[in-house]
């Protein structure tokens, strides 16, 4: 654990990060920006897992394992979403949310 830093301060930072992500998710109008906001939200939750593992249950490692799984799933999700976005750009020449109204053809 970090000397002199209580768990409350770190949880405050992650809460702020989470809500910055939520703000970006709602206000942005571009698919790639929305994806970046999702990354912020996921990272905030990963820090929470790790911090709670370290401060409350230091002799087990479950939080670390779940963080690794979250990171792997987030990477897979980003790769798939970017593939979809590039395919979409080929078909409608735009990545704005307001142009994305057709799921197929």
């Amino acid at each position, binding site marked *: 654990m970090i000397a002199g830093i209580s768990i409350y301060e770190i949880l405050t930072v992650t809460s702020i990060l989470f809500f910055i992500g939520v703000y970006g998710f709602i206000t942005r109008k571009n698919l790639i920006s929305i994806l*970046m906001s999702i990354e912020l939200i996921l*990272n905030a939750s990963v820090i929470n897992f790790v911090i709670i593992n370290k401060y409350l249950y230091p002799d087990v490692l479950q939080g670390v394992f779940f963080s690794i799984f979250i990171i792997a799933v987030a990477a897979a999700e980003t790769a798939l979403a970017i593939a979809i976005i590039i395919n979409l750009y080929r078909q409608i020449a735009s990545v704005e949310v307001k142009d994305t109204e057709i799921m197929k053809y």
Partner: protein
Amino acid sequence: MEKIIFYILALVIIIFAIASVSSKKMLRSVIYLLFVLIGISGIYFLIDYNFLAAIQLTVYAGGVIVLFIFSVMLVHHIEMELELAKVSRRILVGLVSITGLGVFLTTIYSHEFAVVENTITTTTEDIGFGLLSYDVGGFILPFEIISVLLLAAMIGAIIIAKGTKLTNKKNDTI
């Protein structure tokens, strides 16, 4: 000393996160996100989870950010300005976010955490044994499932990204 480093990291994370969601230029916003991710890996280094910090640096700063930069370069002009949401909408969403943050913080600060004082250092060896053990509390099954998931995501990404050929074939048969 660690206190000062933590506060610097927290400041860097929050400032660059705000810059990342409010910047008008797409590429700059990706680079701000990179700084946020590096700050987060700094926090992992501070609490002695070196393996996780290395994963964060390689997967996020090395992989995901490069992917984002590629896609931005493919679909945008480099200096293109993003259109922002209406001011009223931004203020409304900001207020809602701050309200939610207030709810979170009151909940967190009213809860007593049973913090265990410790200076345990986790080695990569421990994490490896935990991930690959099939005893009670082992994580071998999720580990394997994640590997299959990554394979599926890879194949899916390839098939989706080269989709024009598939759709053309379908159109011909119709």
